[in-house]
């Protein structure tokens, strides 16, 4: 029963993240959605390590995942700030404008 609850939680966490990734237009919200998918992956690795008895391996994988997550978040956040400074918006719909927008103006 606990295992089923674990799998349900992992699947729903990842699904909510993927849904938000698809439905969101805001760059920061996309980053938050990626974090949610990462949380699901971390929990999956944790429970796999617990069941297989390879706790140390699983723990080291989770630590690596957390480090990668932070680097991606930092780069993404700075990109969002830079794009906002350049275009005045962090909505994904406005990103494709760029040079065409200058031509239109």
């Amino acid at each position, binding site marked *: 029963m606990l295992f089923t*609850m674990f799998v*349900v939680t992992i699947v729903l966490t990842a699904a*909510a993240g993927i849904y938000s990734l698809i*439905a969101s237009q805001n760059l920061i919200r996309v980053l938050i959605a990626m974090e949610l998918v990462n949380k699901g992956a971390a929990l999956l690795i944790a429970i796999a390590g617990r069941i297989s008895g390879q706790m140390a391996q*699983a723990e080291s994988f989770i630590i690596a995942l957390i480090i990668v997550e932070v680097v991606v978040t930092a780069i993404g956040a700075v990109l969002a700030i830079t794009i906002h*400074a350049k275009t005045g918006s962090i909505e994904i719909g406005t990103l494709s404008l760029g040079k065409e927008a200058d031509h239109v103006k």
Partner: protein
Amino acid sequence: MAIDSMVMIMFVLLALLLVAVLATVVVRNLLGSAILLAVTSTVVALILFVLEMKLAAVMELAVCAGLVTAIYASAISLSKPEQDEKRNVKAENRAWILRHLALPLILIALAVLVVFLVPQVPIDFGTAADAAGGAAGAASPTVQTVLWDLRMVDILSLALLILAGVLGVAALIGKREEK
């Protein structure tokens, strides 16, 4: 008795995690969403702690619930998306609700699917897990051994990745300040 209480704690934590994840996705305010993500990270850290992955739990709590939330708060305050959201709040709120109407249905369908498809696998807590770990314990390495001996190349790669991240952030900020 102790094992039962651990299972109960785990059930409560998993339910809390689901609520926090849903709230993170559904809440419209960006800063609120970032704070709820920190709550999600805290619950994940607690789950890792109960699963006896203490180093990963501390990393999750310090980095994901602390540092990443600070990064999001800075990014949100620097990009000032609130100014964009003030334009036509009512219409955007309505669109937001309509867009997220399908989410509960998708999640319930997935939950039902998982309950019927996933087989039952026992997860041991407390003494049973210690005994199982003890049997293989003599051969199984510690986290420190795995990190510094078995996965040395991975550690070097992670160090390079952090360096690349720092250089990337510095380059992007430097480019922005030049303009």
